[in-house]
């Protein structure tokens, strides 16, 4: 998205982006994590499906940078493969949230009245359910696994995006260019697509980054409880579960997967903050 009201004197979007420390740091982390996940399809230091019992719970060394787990698997390789799972689950969950939430939110804003009231009450109902508890129930009912984890996390993204889209759309509707479009005879649906959506894209992008980060945390929580991706597919949360009973003997089994989660989530949050700053410089002065 480009900023339309740029004056000739102001710097370009790209140069502002690279001057923003949050954005640069977050962007680098996001690219590195994505590259790590992609690389794992082609190459990992060790095969994560092969169990080498003689190498079990080795501390970090030059052969195994992050040590090995209780089956002798290389922790670094498992973190690389586990990144795929985290990214896939969180990304699709954001897609579900946006795919349902944005139409609902913009509809509520466009129609107002009863439709708006009904949708927003429904939203409030969603917020009464602790998301993690409900996700645990959903995955427990439909069986553990990555797909059900995606659905469980995705469902709770819907009201979040509905709320953001509605609030954003409500602030755009009274603007002059929308009035002009209405005067020109455009219907609510067309106005929403042509004028509302492009103007709330920034908000949605920022919220998307935040939900992506939260999705990675939620997936790790579900996997930790044994409700996410199932073994032998490595996942960061599952690795922490396996590490839990071995804190006294093999702490590296917990330290490194946890750091992978922290760094990824931190990077995404920085990226979100950075995007918000760059596209809406007003917010920087305020917050």
């Amino acid at each position, binding site marked *: 998205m480009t900023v339309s009201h740029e004056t000739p004197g102001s710097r370009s979007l790209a140069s502002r982006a690279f001057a923003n420390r949050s954005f640069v740091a977050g962007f680098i982390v996001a690219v590195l994590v994505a590259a790590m996940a992609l690389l794992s399809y082609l190459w990992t230091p060790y095969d994560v499906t092969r169990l080498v019992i003689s190498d079990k719970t080795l501390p970090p060394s030059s052969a195994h940078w992050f040590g090995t787990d209780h089956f002798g698997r290389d922790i670094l390789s498992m973190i690389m493969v586990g990144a795929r799972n985290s990214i896939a689950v969180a990304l699709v969950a954001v897609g579900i949230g946006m795919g349902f939430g944005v139409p609902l939110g913009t509809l509520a804003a466009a129609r107002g009245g009863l439709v708006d009231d009904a949708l927003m009450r429904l939203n*409030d109902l969603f917020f009464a359910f602790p998301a993690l508890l409900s996700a645990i129930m959903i995955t427990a009912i439909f069986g553990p696994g990555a797909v059900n984890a995606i659905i469980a996390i995705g469902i709770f993204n819907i009201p979040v995006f509905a709320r953001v889209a509605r609030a954003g759309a409500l602030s755009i509707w009274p603007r002059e260019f929308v009035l002009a479009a209405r005067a020109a005879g455009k219907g609510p649906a067309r106005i929403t697509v042509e004028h509302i959506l492009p103007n709330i894209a920034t908000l949605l992008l920022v919220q998307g980054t935040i939900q992506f980060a939260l999705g990675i945390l939620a997936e790790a929580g579900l996997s930790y409880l044994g409700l996410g991706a199932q073994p032998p597919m490595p996942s960061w949360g599952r690795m*922490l579960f396996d590490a839990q009973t071995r804190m006294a003997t093999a702490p590296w089994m917990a330290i490194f997967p946890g750091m992978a989660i922290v760094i990824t989530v931190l990077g995404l949050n920085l990226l979100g903050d950075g995007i918000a700053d760059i596209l809406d410089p007003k917010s920087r002065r305020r917050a």
Partner: protein
Amino acid sequence: MTAYLLKRLVIAAITLVVASMVVFAVLEVLPGDPARLMLGMNASADQVALLRNQMGLDAPLILRYLHWVGGLVTLDFGRSYTYSVPVIDLVRERLVVSLPLALMALTLSTAIAIPVGLFAASRQGRAGDAIAMGTAQLGVAVPNFWFALMLIYLFAVWLRLVPAGGFPGWSAGAWPALKALLLPAVALALPQAAILARVTRSALIEVMNEDYIRTARAKGLPYRAVLWRHALRNAMIPVLTILGLQFAFLLAGTIIIENVFYLPGLGRLVFQAITQRDLIVVESVVMLLVAAVIIVNLLVDMSYALADPRLRGRQ
């Protein structure tokens, strides 16, 4: 004022009723017959049918729903399939672990977040602000169960100051029990404190830009005094909102944290009940947690009206 409170009350009541329908409906689609599960795979069809009848699983859906809701209201939650004791007894004995844990975590997170938020806001744009908010940014990214594992490693495995898990019970004395809850409370509190500190800071900074703050400054009050006397009170509304929302996170967080520390609390109870298909326990505990969230948010809404007289006229 009364109209505002009444409207909030009605909305909360409706939400509660709809939520109870959702919980009941969701658990109805649960695959697996609890009667079959209790008797094991070798039981005959007759035995299963008999138990289903005894458990009231044969009655029509609507009657079972009404029976269940009636039970909830009178605090008669039925009997657990797996523990064979009244659910209310289970809840009561688990609540004495989870409630102190949640309260400790909430107190800790507020006690950390508000001073940090104040500190950062009073040094906006300076090094202290950057360090405090950098730490908060990091805190938001840390999964509480991993943080819990690191705390166990540091304080239980390495320094041997506290037990790594388990709960001695309140009968063992207040100090050993509190000691067992200390690490779990810290693990729950710190990520929440990070969020709360950020909200406190931005709410304060927002308020500090208001006209009446400028007036207070203009009449010669020092910056710190204005921050404490005028800004903090006015910044409390967003802080209260987040505190209310965090209560729900906290309850859900106890599920994971109680698992990490092997604490016999409500969260662990509901998690085990889900995996054991102990429907009655799941229904009742989930409904209790949802009701707690709704009531806390209602109280937060009401406290707005007390904290900010301007809101009383609205709506």
